[in-house]
């Protein structure tokens, strides 16, 4: 899942222009290999009224269904309490005190991390029992001072509260103990991966790819944890959440020729002057842009043959040029949850570009392609306008992207 939330502003050093920052929130999870249900819960609440972003990671005692219920119950309680715009620390204490300690193991029934981001960029993190989060700033992990509160039951449990202001390009990485304890008992990692091993790994990933998205980083951390397990199988539920404060990544998806030929120059100008990733989906659309801008198109005939979709093309200044309706239909399928095929094709490339974006401008040319109305075509071809609308809705509702749909 992906959550992008328009956040606080920052001034660009060069131009002095205010640029809105986005909070990209993602998580990745692998359940314990012997279980069918994850024992960690990850919940998100985005308050569209006041732009507050709340997320909870809870780890239930044990694994499987019991842990899942404990974790979900705790996460739901935390989200509900945190939604009330009052002092969450007070409620966190209530949660901690209401969660009993297991009489056999003498440990809490569930642990939790609550990350609360305000629109002004202030962040409050409340932890109970989970490994400490990592704040990555300028490629280094930064220690944040915390306040500690004990519970009223007099047991070992402590509540840690951190408060700080997020800066552009900050990444907050929080995880269940399945990450830090991965590989415990193995010769190389007798005490598990630990926080330090995980932090070193994250630093390394980010230094190799400074623009790595929250989605990919969360996947990296979970895979990194699994690599420590001698059998490469999860011995506990492994969950990692990443919150990335980034400058929004903008993408333009243009498809279909304009209704009127007179608009062709405008169409090409919109695409040419767009700042961000540019995708053109449709042969005629690509030809119009190439003609208006005076650039060539080269079709990569054989690279993706056998992939079930027409090949991609290359055009100077455009990041991806694909065929139209078939590729868009398959991209919508992928966005709606169809598993990605093993072989890359035009739709998997488009899907990847869209998911790595925050703001997506969809430009739909409304001219009907007469050739697609031929009844002898073997497959139902969707009308472009409705197909693009469905893609826009999926990006907005399922991935919470900011989408602008424009018809020309």
């Amino acid at each position: 899942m992906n959550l992008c939330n328009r956040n606080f502003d920052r001034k660009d050093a060069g131009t002095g222009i205010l640029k809105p920052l986005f909070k990209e929130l993602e998580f990745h999870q692998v359940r314990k290999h012997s279980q069918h249900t994850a024992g960690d819960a990850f919940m998100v609440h985005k308050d569209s009224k006041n732009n507050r972003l709340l997320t909870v990671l809870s780890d239930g005692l044990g694994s499987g269904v019991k842990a899942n219920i404990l974790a979900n119950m705790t996460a739901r309680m935390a989200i509900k309490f945190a939604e009330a715009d009052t002092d969450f620390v007070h409620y966190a204490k209530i949660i901690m005190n209401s969660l009993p300690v297991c009489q056999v193991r003498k440990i809490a029934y569930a642990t939790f991390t609550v990350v609360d981001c305000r629109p002004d960029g202030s962040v409050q993190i409340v932890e109970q029992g989970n490994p400490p989060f990592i704040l990555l700033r300028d490629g280094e992990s930064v220690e944040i001072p915390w306040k500690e509160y004990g519970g009223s039951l007099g047991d070992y449990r402590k509540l840690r509260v951190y408060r700080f202001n997020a800066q552009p390009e900050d990444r907050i990485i929080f995880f269940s103990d399945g990450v830090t304890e991965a590989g415990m008992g193995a010769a190389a990692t007798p005490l598990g991966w630990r926080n330090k091993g995980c932090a070193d790994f994250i630093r390394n990933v980010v230094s190799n790819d400074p623009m790595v998205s929250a989605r990919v980083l969360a996947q990296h951390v979970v895979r990194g944890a699994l690599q420590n397990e001698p059998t490469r199988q999860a011995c506990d539920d492994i969950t990692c959440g990443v919150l990335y404060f980034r400058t929004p990544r903008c993408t333009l998806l243009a498809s279909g020729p304009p209704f009127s030929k007179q608009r062709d120059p405008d169409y090409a100008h919109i695409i040419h002057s767009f700042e961000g990733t540019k995708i053109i989906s449709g042969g005629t659309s690509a030809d119009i842009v190439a003609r208006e801008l005076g650039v060539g198109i080269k079709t990569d005939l054989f690279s993706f043959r056998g992939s079930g979709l027409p090949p991609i093309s290359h055009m100077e200044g455009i990041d991806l040029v694909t065929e139209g309706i078939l590729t868009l239909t398959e991209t919508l399928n992928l966005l709606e949850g169809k598993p990605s095929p093993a072989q890359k094709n035009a739709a998997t490339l488009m899907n990847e570009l869209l998911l790595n974006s925050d703001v997506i401008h969809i430009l739909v040319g409304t001219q009907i392609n007469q050739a697609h109305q031929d009844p002898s075509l073997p497959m139902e071809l969707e009308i472009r306008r409705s197909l693009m609308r469905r893609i826009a809705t999926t990006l907005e509702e399922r991935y919470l992207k900011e989408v602008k749909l424009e018809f020309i």
Partner: protein
Amino acid sequence: MKKVNVTICTGTTCYLMGAANLLTLDEALDPCTREQVEFSGSHCLGLCTSEEHGKAPFVKVDGHVIADATLMKVQDKIREILDRGE
């Protein structure tokens, strides 16, 4: 020797009507012929919008339009041009 230009249309209509199979053309040709052919792709040759050109998929071999193209038809045309050239 001048190579024979083969342009395969991979637009939506042509792809659905059989151009997907034509993408194996380079493997279907014998190695000698293959060396004398230059392949290119086109997003849309613009031939499917009018019935006068025939049915999709379309392939252009040295400027000759082949309608309802199949591997066999395109190979025949390539050989015909090569034989004429010799």
